[in-house]
């Protein structure tokens, strides 16, 4: 099992490095500060929701609500933006945490299947976002310091958002790799019944992952509002699937029980990079792929990764049986 997971993880790092080298060698401005900072700024939202999703999937669950929860959080943060970052940031994250708590209550409390419970929260969060925003985009208050988070960079290179995400990633990584809570998360995914019978606090771990994922979605929503100057109730459609794809590309099996936070980050960056490279290739004028092709290529990319994983996972599955 260990060997399999490290193989899965190695693939995503190799792919990431190959694509980066390809970009650096082929395009003049690929390694520029501008490209790096806009790439990281845009993808910080996807990385953070993918990390939350990774922990949920490690338990064998799923969180379909992250996209609309991020939209809800962006509306909450934008509405409170006149009071500054000090209020709007925690409020947006709190909205995400509340949605996560709702998921946790339905899943760990009422024992509803995660797919359906988070589907319900997905709809409810969209309804909530539309209600709070009166069906409109909510402009942020530019005179407060709220947009500072999403628009400023350290040394003109690293966006503050990616540094915040880095902290979240490290926290998630340490929790999974070093704490009993993290081991319980993985044990639930391996075999929930056995984990429970062994006396592990499975319910606490389940509550944790859904609340954590909600908080990550809330943070992504704050980034969205702060970086693009508006709370956007209709944004976030399909984010949950992008996050799931990033987790899968990172080598985490949807059945749970294994997985890696850093590899998920690599998976999310890999997806962003495919887009980034396509834009550069379009810019060179050698090919001209419309935006329509991008989703086709993203799907093909996911297909290739999954086929590779299916080959990797096969022998292991046989020896286990």
């Amino acid at each position, binding site marked *: 099992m260990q060997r399999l997971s490290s193989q899965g993880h190695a693939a995503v790092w190799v792919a990431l490095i190959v694509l980066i080298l390809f970009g650096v060698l082929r395009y003049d401005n690929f390694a520029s500060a501008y490209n790096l900072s806009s790439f990281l700024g845009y993808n910080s939202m996807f990385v953070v929701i993918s990390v939350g999703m990774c922990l949920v999937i490690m338990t064998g669950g799923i969180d379909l609500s992250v996209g609309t929860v991020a939209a809800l959080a962006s509306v909450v943060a934008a509405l409170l933006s006149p009071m500054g970052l000090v209020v709007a940031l925690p409020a947006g994250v709190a909205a995400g945490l509340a949605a996560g708590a709702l998921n946790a209550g339905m899943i760990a409390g009422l024992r509803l*299947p995660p797919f*359906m419970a988070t589907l319900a929260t997905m709809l409810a969060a969209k309804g909530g976002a*539309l209600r709070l925003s009166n069906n409109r985009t909510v402009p942020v208050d530019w005179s407060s310091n709220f947009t500072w988070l999403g628009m400023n960079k350290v040394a003109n290179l690293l966006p503050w958002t990616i540094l915040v995400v880095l902290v979240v990633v490290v926290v998630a990584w340490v929790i999974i790799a070093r704490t009993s809570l993290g081991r319980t998360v993985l044990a639930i995914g391996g075999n929930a019944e056995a984990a429970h019978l062994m006396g592990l606090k499975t319910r606490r771990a389940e509550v944790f992952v859904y609340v954590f994922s909600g908080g990550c979605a809330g943070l992504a929503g704050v980034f969205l509002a702060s970086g693009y100057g508006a709370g956007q109730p209709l944004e976030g*459609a399909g984010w949950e699937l992008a996050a799931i794809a990033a987790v899968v590309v990172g080598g985490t099996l949807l059945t749970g029980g294994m997985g890696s936070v850093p590899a998920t980050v690599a998976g999310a960056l890999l997806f962003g990079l495919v887009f980034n490279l396509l834009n550069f290739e379009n810019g060179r004028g050698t090919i001209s792929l419309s935006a329509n092709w991008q989703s086709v290529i993203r*799907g*093909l990319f*996911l297909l290739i990764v999954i086929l590779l994983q299916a080959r990797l996972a096969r022998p292991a599955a046989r020896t286990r049986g």
Partner: protein
Amino acid sequence: MIRRLDPRLAGLLVALGVLIALNLAMTPNFLNMQTLAVNVSQVATIAIVALGMTLVIASGGIDLSVGSVMAVAGALAPIIFLSDWALANPGAGLAASIVVPLLVAALCGVFNGVLIAILGVQPIIATLIFFISGRGVAQVLTNGNLQTFTNPSFTWLGTGRVLSLPVQGWIALILTIGLALVVRRTIYGRYLLSVGGNERAAVLSGVPVARIKIATYVIAATLAGLAGLIVVAINSASDAARIGQLMELDAIAAAVVGGAALSGGRAPMVGTLLGAVFIQLMGYTLIANGVSDEMTLIVTAAIIAIAVWLQRGRRQ
């Protein structure tokens, strides 16, 4: 044959009855043909997709790609009947514009089914691939343009009336009855339920699990293709970016409210139709009584959660 009514179905029927009674009391102009026709025409496509989704769910899977399949089928139909060949041969052109998109949709189902049944990819992930790329394919086919057309014989699929009710309502009803019989009376139906109930046992007792699963995804995709054609026919226009968006969620919701269990092994086709009708009527009731769209979303969310919770209670 007189059988005891399934308690889940009975519960849903009671809920529907209550909803209709409430509407009779509260909603002005509820009891006229216009209201009925509007609701039937809106619910039919969801019901048709949900029937396929119920079969997939019964096999223990899920199909996220139905909306994208709708978009592909919906994009193909106008391309075919607006082509020079079809304009020269209107009859054959019309037939081709229905048959070819359905075949392509079925091929999408083969793709999903092979990934899941042969390569062992999890259904959510396998169907996620076409969910992501299928809509892109539809947009590439149409260059991202809105295709508008006038073709009365094709638009009949979405705007025609039979016995003063929309034709797609009849299609949904016939498909429901047909598939209910297939589930109950055919070997495929038995095998399907056994695969979803306990896959390992099904394999060991010689059920051709892979073939059954592939067939199930093919049926689901073909039904989604049909729904895509109907949506295009209703609008006399094909917008690849929008056809079937969020349809996978509507269909899953209808299936679950109708009594399908995500763990598989149950394929209540009539329940699915009633589940779709219930969600539709609930939305209509709220909107007709001045409740806003966004509150309707929240109520739908609550209904889904309650429906799943009720099923869980019965299983224990």
